[in-house]
């Protein structure tokens, strides 16, 4: 499968692995950098990390699927994270994520076909005072109301259009 990745991309992954050469347990740091810089960590990339670190692909895949921070699929242009931690859940977080889900036509964890939006369910993000909280591309929306959601989505949709 490695062959699917072009030479330049492979070189970049190797370069990221080399950043943590002396580290005792470099895996999380390598994967975090890849996730941040490329938006996802697919199996082909894990194979390269495995070859560089000597950690089995099975173990790397286990780590990637254990932490919700890592993604196997490319994320959309705008990543919407709905907090479902205890405080947000009590304040109606489930209704918020359901509403995003309905408007975007995707389930949590999925990305819209046009690649504009990814919807994620998050565990507590530490913004309990703002419950129910939503993050979009890192920006926090506090005390979100179900009624506001169409406007929020529209804002990003138009934003995307404006960029084109």
């Amino acid at each position, binding site marked *: *499968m490695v062959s699917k990745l072009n030479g330049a991309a492979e070189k970049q992954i190797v370069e990221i692995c080399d950043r943590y050469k002396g580290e005792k347990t470099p895996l999380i740091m390598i994967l975090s950098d890849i996730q941040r810089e490329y938006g996802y960590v697919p*199996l082909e990339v894990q*194979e390269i990390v495995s070859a560089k670190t000597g950690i*089995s*692909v099975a173990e*790397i*895949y*286990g780590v990637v*699927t254990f932490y919700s921070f890592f993604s196997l699929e490319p994320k959309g242009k705008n990543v919407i994270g709905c907090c479902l931690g205890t405080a947000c859940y009590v304040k109606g977080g489930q209704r918020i994520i359901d509403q995003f889900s309905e408007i975007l036509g995707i389930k949590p964890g999925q990305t819209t076909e046009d690649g504009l939006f990814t919807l994620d369910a998050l565990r507590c993000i530490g913004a309990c005072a703002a419950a129910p909280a939503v993050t979009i591309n890192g920006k926090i929306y506090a005390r979100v109301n179900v009624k506001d959601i169409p406007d929020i989505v529209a804002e990003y949709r138009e934003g995307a259009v404006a960029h084109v």
Partner: protein
Amino acid sequence: MKVNIKIEGKDYQVEEGTTILEAARACGYEIPSLCSYNHGECSQGSCRVCLVEATGARGLVASCVYPVAEGMEVKISSPKAVAARRTSVELLLSNHSQNCQQCRKNGHCELLYVAQLTGAREGAFTGEKTETHYDDLTPSIIRDSSKCILCGRCIERCKSAHGNGVLGFERRGFKTFVAPAGNLSLDKSPCLMCGQCVSVCPTGALLVKSEIGKVDAAMVSGKHVIVQTAPAVRAALGEEFGYPIGTAVTGKMVAALRRLGFEKVYDTDFGADLTIMEEATELLHRIESGGVLPMITSCSPGWVNYAETYYPDLLRHVSSCKSPHEMQGAILKSYYAQQKGIDPADIFVVSIMPCTAKKYEKDRPQMKNEAGLKDVDAVLTVTELAEMIRRSGILFKRLPDEEYDQDIMGEYSGAGTIFGVTGGVMEAALRTAYFVLEGKEHEGITFEQVRGFDDVKEASFALGGQTLNVAVTSGMRNASKLLDDVRAGKSKYQFIEIMCCPGGCINGGGMPIVRHAFLPDEDVDIVDTYRAKRAAALYSEDERNVLRQSHNNTQIQALYKEFLGEPNSHLAHELLHTSYKAREPFRA
């Protein structure tokens, strides 16, 4: 250092630093657990089956990981401990597919065993179950996650044997399951098909893929069904019928196979002798002609899979010889068919093997003859053979000892027999290489230097005026050390024997499962000693044989004289040699 502890109110002195489980065992108590006698395969203490009360600890402790301490009082049979262990097992059962009656692991299932011990009942806890996965795409292994209890033994075994583990935990919490990366089929993963995972799975989550149905169908269709048995099989089949580990049951096995309806019962040791003729000739040719060295053995299909996956650049080092049972199959469908006047297409060859990778090997496109016939049609593991014997009603222990069929390929040497243990192929090859290079038999016959279970065994021999440096290893974790040297051009050997399973075929994935729970008459140290006992059975059969060298097998000599010509002849190459192909670790 000893410490004083109390178990069930009685005073004992036990080794400091040991776990409660080990200490109790030394004092004559077997705490119900899922890890009994399998130390090193799990250090998590997460299954909670072996809970006991211990003073100085908060609450109940998992005895498999909790160390003893001076003055500790351990209670195994207190109502609190008994109830806790029962609950632990009931919780495991609550997320387990409870179709025990249909399960092929029934009778060897450790979960069912601890359920009986602890009085756990199915259905004590009901509710949602984890999403399950079923994979039966490989010819060797079936993975059924609905039976998995997430103990992680398979993951540990794969890693400890072969380094680059194929299986891992995926996802988290209630959704966790064990699978190859990407939840791919084992068929698309770098799995070697060795079956080591199968041999440690406590439940039916990893099973050998059965080919008994194929054999039944061949018998019914009126084919000429011939069976051959690998060297290691005789050393372990008895375990399935109550014999102590290390009892060779060759005669009874032959008798059973005849009663099961096979037309001919042959020993793959003949094929092993043939392999030695071909392989030793290939080695000497490589040495004389400045060919690619070191040459590496090719009998172990798990190792071949590993080479093709991880060391494709070294495939020229791997001997082109087919493995013994494939060679024997090829001869059965050519020379034997000719001699007996049977159409090769009507011959059905069954191999009884200690190995799950042999099932994969026999389906390789390189293992077919010109007419498209497979050299071997079905491979049964030792456990499958035991299943066939049991269902037929044969009382194994009451069988007489019978001899293999003697015609055409009935003779075999002790050199062929020891193929089943690490170092055996090397020793067999050395016996013949000595004869060729020195012009006489090696007086001592054996080559003890290549025996035993060290990770890597090395030896040097002065033969025919030159020095022959050899190495023997098993388990791919060990092999990779030697292979990295070969890759770097630093290897000092001319000949290397590599077997996939640690210890060789006597520890193959198709061998009977060694669990104290099912072998109560065995010693406490069973896990440390079973390989040596099975190996000893093979070495003593070698000693009892008057024929000790492959080249002195008169039927092998006749085969060359009347049919093949000489070792490595054109016809020998066509029938007995094979080729290899690089493969991607992950195949979409």
